[in-house]
């Protein structure tokens, strides 16, 4: 095990950064992910197809293209970038926040799909029952739909996290590969594969990344099992 954990400070930073980026990407995409999934599952409005397409875009586009589009729109000179900096004081360009944004967006279609599938599986008769008991639609959603969607939310979250642990094309294109700020594990791995003799190092970092993801995966499965057990045989 020592060889596995015998990391340079930069590598350590990359590990920590990756966990941070993946966690933030996952957490921050959850609320919009749930919202969009709900819209797509239940909504009937003009432009639904467009939103659906937009959500899937990061899946379809080569990551480099996504990264480049992010650079153009969320970069220092991009309109979205200026907007966020002005109104929220959030800067994405060449910051770890940008890496999180890129990872979140790359994992977004996966998350939305999982949650949407789960929402579509919820028995609307239960929602009707909650409505007759006096719960406002928003509360019906929070107390009935959402808990019953939990398996999908957990699946979506873990997909988003795992994707973030592996995402590299969009990230490196958008926020580059600056140690300690935007150099996530996959970026570090990429760099190592680009130089002679880097394979062992790349392998080591890959293993670390896999281990982190597997721990997250196992945790998510346990969570989902608990959520599922509660519905058992109903």
């Amino acid at each position: 095990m020592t060889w596995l954990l015998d990391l340079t400070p930069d590598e350590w930073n990359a590990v920590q950064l990756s966990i941070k980026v993946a966690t933030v990407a996952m957490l921050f995409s959850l609320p919009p992910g749930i919202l969009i999934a709900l819209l797509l599952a239940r909504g009937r409005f003009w432009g639904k197809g467009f939103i659906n397409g937009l959500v899937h875009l990061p899946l379809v586009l080569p990551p480099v293209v996504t990264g480049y589009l992010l650079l153009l729109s969320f970069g220092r000179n991009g309109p979205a970038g200026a907007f966020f900096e002005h109104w929220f004081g959030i800067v994405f360009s060449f910051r770890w926040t940008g890496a999180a944004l890129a990872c979140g967006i790359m994992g977004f279609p996966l998350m939305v799909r999982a949650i949407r599938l789960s929402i579509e599986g919820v028995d609307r008769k239960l929602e009707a029952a909650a409505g007759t008991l006096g719960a406002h639609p928003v509360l019906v959603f929070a107390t009935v739909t959402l808990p019953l969607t939990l398996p999908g939310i957990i699946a979506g979250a873990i997909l988003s996290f795992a994707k973030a642990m592996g995402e590299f094309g969009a990230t490196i294109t958008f926020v580059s590969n600056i140690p300690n700020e935007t150099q996530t594990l996959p970026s570090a791995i990429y760099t190592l594969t680009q130089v002679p003799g880097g394979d062992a190092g790349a392998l080591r970092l890959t293993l670390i990344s896999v281990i982190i993801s597997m721990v997250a995966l196992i945790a998510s499965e346990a969570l989902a099992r608990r959520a599922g057990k509660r519905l058992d045989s109903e």
Partner: protein
Amino acid sequence: PARAADGDVVVFAAASMKNALDDVNKACTPDGGGPALISYAASSALAKQIENGAPADIFVSADLAWMKYLADKKLIKAGTEVKLLGNQIVLVAPKDSTAEAKIAEGFDLAALLGEGRLAIGDVKAVPAGKYGKAALESLRIWSSVEGKLAQAENVRAALKLVATGEAPLGIVYATDAVAEPGVKVIGTFPENSHPPIIYPTAETADSKNEQASTFLKCMQSDKARKLFEAQGFTVLTPATN
């Protein structure tokens, strides 16, 4: 505002230079302007990032084209561009291969390949691929192997194709071939068969960091030269002090 860590010089460098540049960075610390923060990625990505306001002080490109791309947009500090390093392209084969070749005009590369493919960096996108194509053209064998290429995303991937025996031959940088135990060099392309392989470097126009020029200088120093040469590069700048 997006400067990384307090006052460190930020270098955007082609990924293939990581080994050498990491060593140089150490050597240039603390009195050579280091330690610099070095972001390694594809030259294309780095150039576009600089175009979009990346906090880079120094750009090290794997070819002249992306440097020119920035220079044309006035994103390079005038007069700072230096042609720093040179390299060679070689023909490699898996280490247990029996293939032999004498690289000269018209040599029968196609026959050497047989049914196999020639691993090479993307001939339109990857610098090593572009040089390789130029060399094959000037040796007048391009047309005979054009249909037998396996173009890779980057030169390292091309090398891997050869190392795993997937491709019987490949064209890669000498610097890469040296360190890969799975391949052996069976010939070097003559210098005059392709445009000179040059890694240029320059300060960006937006750089405000005074240490940047110090670091740039350090990259051209003797101690740096040794480190670059240790990785197989040829240093193009004249020796200083």
